[in-house]
């Protein structure tokens, strides 16, 4: 029985900025593309995307019945969500192996979460 997990890669903003640094972009993308290829090659990926800079985020809340729209991500932390993968693997141990290979594990944080099973309505 396989189970789905989401791998959330939280990247340090300084590291994310390497995407556009002429000197560091090659190494940055090299590591990411190699990981993406390897995880795709394993045939376990069910979805996933990379995300634009946290500064491009917009956050919406409803406060006392009023909509509040804010520029930026909701949490002001050093590491920011930079992308995610949905994978289907036999168990958590295998998911952790892929999380460890994720380049963000070396300079940010990688969170692994089981996907909530779909609610069943058969009764």
């Amino acid at each position, binding site marked *: 029985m396989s189970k789905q997990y989401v791998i959330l890669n939280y990247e340090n903003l300084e590291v994310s900025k390497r995407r556009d640094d002429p000197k560091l972009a*090659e*190494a940055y993308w*090299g*590591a990411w*593309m*190699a*990981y*993406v*290829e*390897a*995880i795709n*090659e*394993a045939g376990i990926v069910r979805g996933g995307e990379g995300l634009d800079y946290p500064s491009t985020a917009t956050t919406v809340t409803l406060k006392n019945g009023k909509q509040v729209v804010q520029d930026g991500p909701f949490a002001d932390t050093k590491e920011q969500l930079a992308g995610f993968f949905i994978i289907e693997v036999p168990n*958590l*141990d295998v998911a*952790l*192996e892929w999380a*460890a*290979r994720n*380049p963000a*594990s*070396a*300079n940010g944080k990688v969170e692994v979460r089981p996907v909530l099973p779909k609610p069943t309505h058969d009764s």
Partner: protein
Amino acid sequence: MKSVELIARGSYGKLLAFLAAWSGDVASSEDALAEAFEKALAHWPREGVPENPDAWLIRAAKNRLADRFRHLKVVVNSEIEIELRESERRERLTEEAWPDERLKLLFVCTHPAIDAAMHTPLMLQTVLGLDAKTIASSFLVSPASMAKRLVRAKAKIKAARIPFEVPSSEKLASRLDSVLEAIYAAYGASWDLFRGEEASSRDSLSDESLYLSETLSQLLPNEPEALGLHALILFCQARQRSRRTFVGAYIPLEKQDPSFWDQRMIQRAEGMLHAAAALKRLGRFQLEAAIQSAHVARIRNGTDNWASVVQLYDAVVSLSPSAGAQLARVSAILEAFGAATAETQLARLESEQEGTLRSFQPYWAVKGEIQARSGLLAEAKQSLRTAVGLSIDPGLRSYLLDKIAQLS
């Protein structure tokens, strides 16, 4: 208090092994020993460290265990009372009243009735006193499930009454294998995982494995493989500082600077290997140590000895054909006999176990190297990229990325 910590570090395994062998219950012995250390922390600073701290701790832990057993009424009371009085008397008689039961504990942890994947974690926790969290990180397992698996394994020891004994001589060889494997796996875990900010916990795991292999070689001085394993770990540890630059970049074997090696450790390793060879029973760990010895000689003197390294790997693979050993052999063949021969050998390996190799980082690294030397640059780049994608170690990742860039 410093002295309690020092005693805990030096004696934990010995004390726990003694208590567990006495009670047959690892989990309760751990609890009792933890309570004894707490008691020591409260008493010793006021009353001074007792003359024989180990005996003091054993007595405190035994009292806790006895209380527990009395409470559970699982053991005949009088038996415990006699044993307790006996141990107090012995303790007054001599300092070295406690037999070293660690060897028995090692055999319990690696008993075939226990899931092989738990041998090393169990050993690290009971003999070395590492916590579940540290062990979990080393084996890339969640701390909660590692803790659960450890509890389950200890319950099994108690419920199945796995005997605390050194196997008889006819069983010793096969049972010893599991002990050696478990110690080597602990050392391997300390290498495979690069934990940037937690580098100290990696160092401590490799130190602990070295210490375990040393202990084992002292407890079983006539078992050549026990000596072989200790020699192997010594060789690897001796070169530890030459494997990385100060910023953590990976340095391949041939580029390592011998002046960073620990010469005394290498000497001890060579001595160990000689002692093992004198016992005239060859085995996998002696061979692996001999390979390390050959690497040391080659890099130090600049003499090409790859052909003999290949021969040693042939022997390793015939004894234990793991994917790691097979690939190391192919890699040595590449150095000794060139890309074409290595290619043939790799193709044979691929046809045998294609499925397992696909997610195995060393496979793609070796394949890429062979392709590069055959002039197949595009293929080499693709293989090395897969190796990058499967790497856990950022130092190794950037080393391989550099290599890909140089192929262009």
